[in-house]
C-alpha cells in the first residue's frame, strides 16, 4: 500500500507462525486474553508471572524476540504518573518515606501500583504482538466477520489509506509555516499566543476544505469503479480448525490462570 503503511507495517511483512496465523483467530484471542489479564487481582504475583509466559512464547514464535516487544511497550510509559500517587494515598503499613517531602508509601499502595503496571505491560505487549504480526487490512477484515458495522470498518480502512495523503498535506503546510517564520536567535519571534493559535487554526481549516474536496473526488472515483458498499476480497477461505483451536487454547490458558489462582 502506501509508503506510510510500509513504515507502520514493516514488521507485519515478516514470516513466522504468528504472522501466518489468520487474523480471525488472532484478533478475538488477543481481545479476550487482554480482558483476562486486566481482571488480575491486586498482588496476585503468581497469576501475573503465569500470564507473562504467553508473551515470551509469542515473542519467540513471532521471531521478533523479547527485546523488540520490550521496546514497543515503552510507548505507554507516561501513564505511569497517573497511578504513582496511589502508593502514597492507599492506607497501610509504611514501608518507605520520601526524603524531602516526607510522603509515606504504604505496602498496600506499592502492591496496587506494581499490579496495575504489570497488568498494563502484559496487555500492551500482547497488543503489540498482534499489530507487529498482522496487517491492518487483515485486522479490519477480521472485524467484519465479527459483525462490526460496515460503515465503521470502512471508515477505519479509508482513514488508514488516506491518513498518508492528508498527513503529507499537513506536513507540507507545517513546512511552509516554518519557512515563512524566520527568526533571529535570541530574539523573541512570532506574535502573541492567540495569534500563533490562529495561524494553526487557519491551517486546520484549510486542511478541512482540502480534505472534503478530496473525499468528493474519492467518492466519484469509487462510483466510476462500481463500488457497492463493501470492499471486495478475492479469497474467502474458511478459518482453519487448527488455528481456531490454537486461539481458543491461548484464551483458555489465561482464563484458567485467573480461575486457578482464585481457587488455590
Amino acid at each position, binding site marked *: 500500500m502506501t509508503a506510510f503503511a510500509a513504515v507502520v507495517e514493516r514488521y507485519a511483512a515478516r514470516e513466522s507462525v504468528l504472522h501466518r496465523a489468520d487474523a480471525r483467530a488472532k484478533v478475538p484471542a488477543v481481545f479476550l486474553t487482554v480482558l483476562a489479564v486486566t*481482571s488480575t487481582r491486586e498482588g496476585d504475583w503468581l497469576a501475573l508471572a503465569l500470564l507473562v509466559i504467553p508473551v515470551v512464547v509469542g515473542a519467540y514464535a513471532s521471531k521478533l524476540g523479547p527485546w523488540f516487544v520490550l521496546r514497543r511497550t515503552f510507548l505507554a510509559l507516561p501513564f505511569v504518573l497517573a497511578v504513582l500517587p496511589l502508593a502514597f494515598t492507599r492506607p497501610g503499613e509504611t514501608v518507605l518515606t520520601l526524603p524531602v517531602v516526607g510522603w509515606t508509601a504504604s505496602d498496600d499502595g506499592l502492591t496496587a501500583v506494581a499490579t496495575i503496571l504489570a497488568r498494563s505491560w502484559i496487555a500492551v505487549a500482547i497488543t503489540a504482538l498482534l499489530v507487529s504480526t498482522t496487517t491492518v487490512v487483515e485486522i479490519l477484515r477480521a472485524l467484519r466477520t465479527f459483525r462490526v458495522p460496515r460503515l465503521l470498518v470502512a471508515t477505519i480502512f479509508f482513514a488508514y489509506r488516506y491518513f498518508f495523503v492528508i498527513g503529507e498535506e499537513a506536513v507540507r503546510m507545517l513546512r511552509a509555516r516554518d519557512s515563512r517564520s524566520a527568526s533571529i536567535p535570541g530574539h523573541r519571534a512570532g506574535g502573541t499566543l492567540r495569534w500563533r493559535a490562529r495561524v494553526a487554526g487557519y491551517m486546520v481549516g484549510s486542511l478541512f476544505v482540502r480534505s472534503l474536496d478530496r473525499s468528493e473526488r474519492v467518492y466519484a472515483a469509487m462510483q466510476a469503479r462500481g463500488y457497492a458498499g463493501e470492499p471486495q476480497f478475492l479469497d474467502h477461505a474458511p478459518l482453519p480448525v487448527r488455528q481456531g483451536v490454537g486461539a481458543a487454547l491461548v484464551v483458555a490458558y489465561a482464563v484458567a490462570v485467573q480461575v486457578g489462582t482464585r481457587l488455590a
Partner: protein
Amino acid sequence: MMSITQAAIQVTSDGPGMHIPDGFVSAPVAAAGWVAMVGILAVAVRVTNRELNEKAVPLMGVMAAFIFAAQMMNFPVAGGTSGHMLGGALAAILLGPWAAMIVMTAVVGFKSVLFQDGGIAALGLNVLNMGMLTALVGYASYRTAEPLLRGNRTALLASVSVAAWISVEVAAVSTSLQLAVSGSSPLDVVLPAMVGVHALIGVGEGLITAAALGFIMTTRADLLPQRRPASSSTGRG
C-alpha cells in the same frame, strides 16, 4: 515519509493521561465502557447510514484522516511545549454529532491498535471520553449558544472556543472518574491534576477550533451544516 510517522507518533501523547492503557481500569469499568460505546455507536451508524448511504464511507474515512492530521497542527506555547487539538468538538460542529462520533471512534481505535496508545480493553472508555463526550458536549454547547447570538460572528467564534474548552474538560473529568472508580488513582489527586492540565490544553483546543471554523466561515461557508440544504445535513456529496 518518516516525518509523517514521527509526527503521528508525537501526537499520540496528547497531554498526560487521556488515553487510558489496559490494566489501569478494572474489568467491570472497562466492560461498561464497551457496552456504552457499542450502544451509542449503533445509533450513530444507523443515523449516518440513513443520511448519507454509501457516500458516508469516503467522507467519514477522509475526515478521520483529517482529524488525525489536524492533531499534528501544533503551535509553540512556551518553554518548548506545544499546543494542538483533539478535534472532537470541531468534528461535531462540521459534520454533526453522530458522524463526528464515528470519525472520532475511528481515530481513537486507530491509535489504540497501531500505536498502543490507549488499551484494547479500555478502548470503550477512551472512545467514550475522547470521541463521544467531546463531540456531544462540544456540539450541544455550540448549538445552545448559536441561536442566542443572532449571527454575531465574533460572539459565535468565542462560544465555539468555549464549547471546545468545555468538551476537553468534560473528557478529563470523565477519565478521572473512571480511574478513581477502578481504584487506580485516588479521586482527590487525579481529578484536580487532570482538570488542571486540561484546562490549559483546552485553551489551545478552543483557540484552534474557533480559528479553524472562522477560516471555513470566511472561505467556504457553504460547507457548514447550517448553511447547507436539509437533505444533506451531514456532508456534501
